[in-house]
């Protein structure tokens, strides 16, 4: 780890995070939006591991495991919802799922 500076790890995580964010904002398919959110969460996890390595603590990796667990829980609820939506609307276009306007 000595020859890889901490900053490059954080820059990589930021790039991943921004890619995920662009994905959420531009994709119209709900499954792709969910995948993009996962990319953002994993980017945050990577940043935690890099930060943990910098301080030589296990906390960063502990946090990463929690992030993985939470992301799995979120995806399971999300996919169940997506199934339900597909059942009703016969499409996964997020523009179709906007009946409410105010």
């Amino acid at each position, binding site marked *: 780890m000595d020859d890889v500076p901490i900053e490059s790890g*954080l820059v990589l995580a930021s790039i991943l*995070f921004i890619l995920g964010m662009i994905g959420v904002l531009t994709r119209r398919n709900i499954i792709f939006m969910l995948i993009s959110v996962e990319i953002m969460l994993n980017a*945050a996890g990577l940043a935690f591991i890099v930060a943990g390595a910098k301080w030589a*603590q296990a906390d960063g990796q502990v946090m990463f495991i929690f992030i993985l667990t939470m992301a799995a829980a979120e995806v399971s609820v999300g996919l169940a919802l997506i199934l339900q939506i597909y059942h009703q609307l016969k499409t996964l276009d997020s523009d179709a799922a906007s009946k409410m306007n105010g």
Partner: protein
Amino acid sequence: MSKTDLLSVIPIFILTSAAILILFSIAVKRNHKVIYLITTVSLAADFIYIALFSAKTKWIIEPLFIIDGFGTFNTGLILLSALAVSMISYAYFEQREERKEEYYILLILATLGAVVLVISKHFISLFLGLEILSVSLYAMITYLRKRERSDEAGIKYLILAAFSSAFLLFGMALVYASAGSMEFSGIAKHLASSSSMSPVVFAGLGLMTVGIGFKLGVVPFHMWTADVYEGAPAPVTAYIATVSKGGMMALLVRFFVVIDGYRYTALMMAFAVIAIASMFIGNFLALRQNNVKRILAYSSISHVGYILVAFLAGGTLGVQAVTFYLVAYFITTIGAFGILATLSDRDRDAEMREDYKGLFWARPWTAAIFTAMLLSLAGIPLTAGFIGKFYIVAAGVGNGQWLLVLMLAVNSAIGLYYYIKIIATMFEPYEKERPSDQLYPSIYIVSGVTMAVLTLLLVWIGTNPSGIMDLIQAFVRLN
């Protein structure tokens, strides 16, 4: 783990064991009444335990939890709100859903998450509490699966909440990368060691603000609020508006007080802009609405803006004002959505303004309670909402936040308009022949009693605020 450690997390244990007990009892036999009884009894027992046995002294369980007066008071508030919401939920779900028992597991787990949130002093416990709360809420929002709008609301909330969690997490990672600690106190020590903030910490706190802003539903992160409020079942909407937002607010206050964020002008400016924008945009969007749920959603945006005014004032008085406003706002919001839930029928919620036409002549008591709740939201004297605003103004003036206080006064006047408009609708003449799309609600005693108790509390706090304020002063101290 010492004995005191164990005793101080008993409120959490009660909630987890209640959830497990309900799971088992559903496995044996589905009985809505039994499940409902287990829920209410465990929530009430939990509250009684806190009221009787919690010490007002600070107790820290390293490294995750801090059980102090502020945390204990907010825990009690969250438990009582969850209890009130489950009271409204019984009648609501009894009429609507075949499989209604699992709702109570989700309700208890969400409460567990909120309780963990308000006593956390570490990023890990913050994150876990927040996610237990959020993931339970996704399922609660979509609980009535046959309504198509509830799916839409659920998926919108899921994507945006996960999106904002990612912001919060990335911000935490950046803060951790430069502070070397995930404990609030460790971060405070790191921040205090240098006079100016390093860019990485600044970016981290900024991203965390985005994440927290989403959960609080403040402008410019407010777009989910109206849709989720409209699509979710009325009791769940009450829960999101109170417990979810209140828990987050309590956490924000604790985090800011510990790291002493008040030193940083840039951060304070950002929050001041958010507060003013939330008050104005929330109120203006509510003016144009005919859907009562959406009106309450937009008004909740501006109410969080009001709370931020007290939060920005800071100091002991500011934190006490935040707590008092939360109490008043919880009572009022649960009351308003409770009325909405009792007026709803099997097919849809009583959310259009026309549903309230002539309500005062048809059902005077319901209309009177709803009027009281709306007047409290508007901040009319003799209600809890007025006293809450009074303390916010006092905190703001005490700290010289003249601009914010002025904006609060202007917005209270704007807000009055749409609350009065709903009240006026209730006084309109009642048409004898019922059109076919009118609602046919059935009445339940549990909901009625809950509403009456909430109204009494509202008026009691409004006319005699010293009792509750003494309680808050005894519990909520900064050190």
